[in-house]
């Protein structure tokens, strides 16, 4: 690939061409102005579709053939089943059987269960992945084994890419816990219930061909239609589309670690002192154990002060649902349900509303919900002395996580990252992030168990909390402390080859990930 690099607005050397297509380097927050029109699929006619509305075919393989699957096409899948997904693996098993090659896989995220697909990268059934690459997939890519260059985007960025025609999906495969033969689908009922199908919305609207795969085919109509059958070409019934125990998994448990609980409590104290927790406020916290604990501490403060939140954005889980049910939160605007409490609440409580990356996160639209949130609690793998943050690689340079909604949430009014100062000797606060995912100007507060650093740009926050008795330090002091305790870290060694590209919310290239030096 073309290795010519240009310096972007964040000072990172990035490519302006990815997998043969042109790309724009990052220009700073809000500076890139999109031109042109949204992508539009071709016009269809009912004449080409069954008059009785029954689009069912025998198998995924047959559906792919009927969709005209060819070498080099783009196939998309969603990740509402998280590590319990069985769809993507079945799809590529079929692609392999058909002898098709060089597919671009476009998942909304990948998980450890997709390790199965490494063999298809080895034999070039899959040319490259545009989506997160975790665990074994991440290692495979970091070691330079994938044929093409990976692209990582936020949830909002993925929607933007599809909407803008940056990624043209040839075939979208949508796993649906409930569907009818016409193609209407939802995530609320069925053995593989996952709540909603928001991540597949763009796929259904913009893909050339759409296949709905279900293990719970019901008679027309399948209500509510989170995916509209009018966008769907074929429906398929299979034995299983997901593993329920992994779909609604145990990740939503509040941390028991005393260190992390302390961090969560400190975060809530900070928000209280800064006047952020007030009647009618809105918040969002990530799905990790520490973030959940922050939510519980918020709850205590809200109860004590008789405060109600206007809305909370989720990842919903049993803790958030109980806040809704106890009247502490008026609405949950939900992008993803993590457990059965979330699924049930979404199905039965009108104030628990499903959203999609279009409404929540899309930057190339007329506003989005993430901007409206008063305070968001997020994680990170690294933060540097300019408040820049990284979520996709660890300090050893290996690809580790997807971006999720993280970049999109940076536009909320106050962005707080509660982080341990170091994790197992690895400093979290460092000089220079290994991979830039979020620019420092959008990150307001770093809270560690050894002190709180407020971005100097937020003079308003500084003045609100300066007499609060909270342990305020500069970010440099925190970095120095991490270094004193852990020692000054070496930088990971990389080759020249670029294995993946990180996109910003507007489709520009904010950073690149290089191949790990072996040996």
């Amino acid at each position: 690939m073309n290795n010519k690099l240009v310096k972007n607005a964040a000072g990172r050397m990035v490519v302006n061409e990815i997998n043969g297509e042109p790309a724009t380097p990052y220009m700073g927050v809000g500076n890139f102005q999109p031109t042109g029109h949204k992508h539009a699929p071709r016009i269809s006619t009912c004449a080409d579709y069954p008059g009785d509305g029954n689009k069912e075919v025998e198998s995924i393989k047959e559906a792919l053939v009927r969709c005209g699957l060819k070498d080099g096409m783009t196939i998309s899948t969603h990740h509402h089943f998280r590590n319990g997904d069985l769809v993507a693996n079945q799809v590529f098993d079929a692609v392999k059987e058909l002898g098709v090659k060089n597919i671009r896989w476009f998942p909304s995220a990948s998980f450890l269960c997709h390790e199965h697909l490494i063999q298809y990268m080895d034999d070039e059934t899959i040319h490259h992945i545009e989506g997160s690459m975790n665990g074994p997939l991440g290692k495979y890519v970091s070691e330079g084994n994938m044929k093409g260059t990976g692209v990582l985007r936020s949830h909002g960025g993925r929607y933007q890419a599809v909407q803008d025609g940056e990624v043209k999906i040839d075939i979208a495969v949508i796993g649906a816990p409930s569907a009818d033969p016409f193609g209407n689908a939802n995530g609320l009922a069925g053995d593989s219930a996952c709540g909603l199908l928001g991540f597949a919305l763009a796929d259904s609207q913009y893909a050339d061909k759409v296949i709905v795969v279900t293990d719970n085919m019901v008679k027309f109509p399948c209500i509510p239609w989170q995916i509209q059958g009018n966008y769907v070409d074929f429906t398929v019934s299979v034995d299983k589309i997901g593993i329920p125990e992994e779909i609604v998994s145990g990740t939503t448990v509040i941390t028991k670690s005393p260190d992390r609980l302390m961090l969560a409590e400190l975060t809530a104290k900070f928000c209280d002192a800064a006047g952020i927790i007030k009647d009618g406020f809105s918040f969002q916290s990530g799905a990790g154990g520490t973030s959940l604990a922050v939510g519980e501490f918020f709850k205590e403060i809200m109860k004590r002060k008789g405060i109600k939140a206007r809305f909370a954005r989720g990842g919903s889980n049993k803790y958030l649902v109980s806040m809704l049910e106890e009247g502490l939160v008026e609405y949950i605007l939900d992008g993803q349900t993590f457990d059965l409490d979330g699924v049930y609440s979404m199905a039965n409580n009108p104030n628990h509303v499903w959203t999609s990356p279009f409404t929540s996160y899309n930057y190339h639209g007329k506003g989005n919900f993430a901007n409206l949130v008063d305070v968001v609690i997020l994680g990170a793998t690294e933060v540097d002395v300019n408040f820049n943050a990284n979520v996709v690689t660890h300090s050893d340079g290996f690809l580790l996580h997807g971006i999720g909604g993280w970049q999109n949430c940076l536009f909320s009014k106050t962005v707080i990252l509660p982080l341990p100062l170091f994790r197992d000797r690895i400093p979290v606060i460092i000089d220079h992030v290994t991979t830039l995912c979020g620019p420092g100007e959008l990150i307001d507060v770093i809270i560690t168990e050894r002190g709180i650093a407020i971005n100097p740009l937020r003079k308003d926050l500084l003045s609100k909390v300066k007499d609060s008795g909270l342990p305020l330090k500069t970010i440099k002091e925190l970095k120095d402390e991490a270094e004193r305790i852990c020692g000054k870290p070496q930088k990971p060694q990389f080759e020249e080859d670029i294995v993946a590209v990180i996109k910003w919310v507007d489709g520009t290239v904010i950073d690149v990930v290089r191949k790990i030096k072996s040996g």
Partner: protein
Amino acid sequence: MKTSIAITGNAGPKVRSDCEITLELKKEGGISIDLISKVQALYGDSIKDLISEIIEFFGIKSASVRINDSGALSFVIAARMESAITKLVNTDLEYLPEFIQENGYSTDRDKFRFSRLYLPGNSPGHMINAGLHSADAIILDLEDSVAYDKKDEARILVRNALRQIDFCGAERMVRINQGERGLNDLHFVIPHNVNLILIPKCESSSYVKKVEHEIAAIRTRYNLQNQVFLMPIIESALGVENSYEIARSSGNIVAIAIGLEDYTADLGVVRTVNGTESFYARTRMIVAAKAAGIQPIDSVFSDVNDMDALRENVLASKALGFEGMGCIHPRQIQVIQKGFAPDESEIDESKKIVLAYEKAKQNGAGVVAMGSKMIDAPVVARALKTIKLADKLNILPKDWDKVEK
């Protein structure tokens, strides 16, 4: 001659912040270092350099070293390496990591000791963030929480921890072993600014005196300025019988504690939640402590999940006269602090006393009086401390003194 292979430290899927070192001394061939580490990319070189430095420090010419590291900090790696070497080589040398300036502080004899967090002396993972949980004291334990065959390693680890970990102002305590081993333990810790030594299973004043004597010799040798306090732990029937004698056996004793697990075992009874079987021992020890002018400290509460039961236990303990309790998990600290902290009536009483004292000072009166009652100096001192603590615990309203006037 000792054996030629030594294995120290810990490794395994659940191990964090520690490392396992396998050292084999060789007759020739130079030094070979083989490192597997979670943090290879960041600290691989510096770990190897550290190992080389330590090997050279101890004058070893040929050896093979295998390190299996799970993110151990430098001082932990150094401790494990030194332990491996001293298993194989007789030496008086000590590879001491830097003594950070934050660790030079001393404490007062009647500082509040409501909560003391036990840290197993061979588990570095628990030590690193211990100071952040604001316990009054931390206890680096060389005794019961360390397996017998790990006690030598624990000494070196604890020594290094005393030098390198910032415990954020908590009183720095070490619980030594019994007998000869305990006296030897002192040589590894006293030179590194320990504020207080816990003497386990104490049954007589004679051992206290031995400990004191050993400490004095070490302090003289190293020219140490800070005082080292003592806290005997009573854990047997004989200890209870001798509690008053133990309590006043040394001017360095600031508190005595009771260890109920071993005590009930000694009696051959089951330890129960309401503690009827140990009621006599506890109250007897409290009386002995108060008579000797020192703090009586209660035993740890083993159920780390039941905060309600802990809360009840703390209140009962305080009602008997105890002035603190051991903690075995950070989440117990807040509950214990709140329980032993002065309550509203104590604070009110102390307020009145302090105000009377201020008034007396203002008027140049020689005596502090509240109505017709005279207030002795120690009572005033205690009231001032209570107010100061209440203030520190944020349970004193601002301008409390202005409101009253």
